[in-house]
């Protein structure tokens, strides 16, 4: 009699272990993601902290990949994609380039069936991580390879002339592209020659995005594809002389468009 009301539990022990690991993975991911977002909102996140958090996120990502490759059957993707409510919060949405906005589109339900989001999550995580780190450096990647440091060459202290450098910030990549291509006033190009490109690259970071992104004015950052496209045409109207950076920008933006189309 008693057996009739007893629920049979299949793979009980496995599920027990798996769920412990799963919940740990879940909390690490949640905490890491939360920290990553908060840090992006900071004007100047600590590099050590960012690197450690990014590495943890990468580790979570690879754990998910390994577990996915070992999983088969009913535990595969089930839940439909759903944007995380907290990621929709516009003020928080980080200006870490367009990569972060892709995360908001691509990330799915993380609460219960986190396996479900893994493939898209992988991609959006890695693009988010890439975007963060890339934006720690500059997109003013205007030249060929970075000039070699010569032995015993002392690094001249660059005079901190904020005026010139201010205008070299990039509201988004296309504008900076134009600036470096030659729309720059004479004084600025002179400055570019004097300072090594490498030194310029060092000093630009995501803080400029804060101001610029807000200046776009829109409240929501759900980034529907058509809004994004609005910012893209400026590329096509740019001068026809494609520098290496220009073509690179194009390639990246095409890449982003592909992602949007796919989702």
């Amino acid at each position: 009699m008693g057996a009739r009301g007893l629920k049979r539990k299949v793979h009980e022990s496995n599920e027990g272990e798996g769920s412990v690991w799963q919940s740990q993975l879940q909390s690490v991911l949640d905490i890491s993601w939360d920290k990553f977002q908060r840090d992006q909102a900071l004007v100047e996140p600590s590099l050590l902290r960012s690197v450690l958090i990014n590495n943890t996120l990468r580790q979570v990502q690879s754990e998910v990949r390994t577990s996915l490759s070992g999983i088969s059957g009913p535990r595969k993707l089930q839940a439909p994609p759903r944007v995380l409510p907290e990621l929709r919060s516009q003020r928080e949405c980080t200006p870490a380039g367009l990569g972060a906005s892709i995360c908001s589109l691509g990330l799915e339900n993380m609460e219960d069936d986190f396996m479900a989001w893994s493939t898209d999550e992988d991609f959006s995580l890695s693009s988010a991580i890439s975007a963060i780190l890339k934006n720690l450096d500059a997109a003013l990647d205007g030249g060929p390879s970075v000039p070699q440091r010569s032995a015993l060459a002392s690094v001249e202290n660059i005079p901190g002339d904020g005026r010139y450098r201010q205008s070299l910030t990039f509201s988004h990549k296309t504008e900076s592209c134009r600036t470096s291509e030659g729309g720059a006033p004479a004084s600025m190009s002179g400055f570019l020659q004097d300072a090594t490109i490498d030194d310029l690259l060092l000093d630009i970071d995501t803080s400029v995005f804060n101001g610029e992104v807000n200046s776009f004015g829109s409240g929501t950052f759900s980034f529907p594809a058509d809004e994004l496209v609005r910012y893209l045409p400026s590329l096509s109207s740019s001068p026809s002389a494609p520098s290496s950076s220009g073509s690179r920008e194009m390639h990246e933006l095409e890449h982003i468009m592909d992602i949007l189309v796919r989702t």
Partner: protein
Amino acid sequence: MGMCVLDSAESVFCRADIISTVEFNYSGELLATGDKGGRVVIFQREQESKNRPLSRGEYNVYSTFQSHEPEFDYLKSLEIEEKINKIRWLPQQNAAHFLLSTNDKTIKLWKISERDKRAEGYNLKDEDGRLRDPFRITTLRVPVLMPMDLMVEASPRRIFANAHTYHINSISVNSDHETYLSADDLRINLWHLEITDRSFNIVDIKPANMEELTEVITAAECHPHQCNVFVYSSSKGTIRLCDMRAAALCDRHSKFFEEPEDPSSRSFFSEIISSISDVKFSHSGRYMMTRDYLSVKVWDLNMENRPVETYQVHEYLRSKLCSLYENDCIFDKFECCWNGSDSAIMTGSYNNFFRMFDRNTRRDITLEASRENSKPRAMLKPRKVCTGGKRKKDEISVDSLDFNKKILHTAWHPKENVIAVAATNNLYIFQDKIN
């Protein structure tokens, strides 16, 4: 010398700002502290005298000055903190004392000098400084040096700026006493103390593509005797020893110290807790010590594949790493220090606890820096953290630890058993009990 039991002198100094660095000078006569507000306070040890036998070697405030002010970086539109990250003394060469102090971006060389005489009897001006009427001057006199109240002046002699894009985490004076190095997250520069407008970049780990960045520099130090050797530690728990004679650019190390990971203790936090927060050479120069989140390791410079000694600082936190990750405590950077003879090491922990390890006897002790325990001449009672099971009377359980009370900065007198412990905005100075 056995493990010392300490009593406290009347040395608890409270200040408005959080202390961010503590350093004895080479003789131990002076103790410098830097704080979050950019101020440096220097303490001087009282000379022992027969008249005041009880004041044996107390530290009193000697000089206070504002080293760094908040600055504004116009390029990034952000403020550069004035917090003093490190202070390092120069060896004394004349009556004045020199120290280097640094914030995130700028290093300054300060001269601290005493003035205890004043010239009196000027011809052209009065004692209060007013110009004398030339027609009233009828005789010529020679100004005389008169004693005055001791005045300690601090003046900035050099400012080494604009050489670091990332935040400076270490400075270290070379044994040649002419150069020093400064390290930020990705680069290490070598300076000459006389030259401020240029520095040599000797290590650069910035990848061409920042997306590939997975490791940063966390600390660096010059070898105490070999002026061509320095080490730097990383966020992945590795230490690289570099020889400046081998190449002008020390991107390739001479020695690479890393302990193989224990696969059984691997977790999501393994990398974070392996990140080295401090590296210090022993006074002998034969060993170096590294501090990671849970332990202190002593390395023999001749053995790269593992440390020769490992000391657990607060292993009971290993099961709490997830919470410590959540509340950011896992990113706390604890420092460590050697005693003068390299026989003991000290480092801080939470709840205002600090730990001392005797390398010879392998005994360790946990002490607490708190007002209640620091009555003058009081003996410090050893503390113990209960890790599970029944909590004994004087023990404190892990869950009762106050993680806001962290001891990140400690310093040990170069010759005697006197230690300085910074607990948030209080500085404690403890001395060995001598019967």
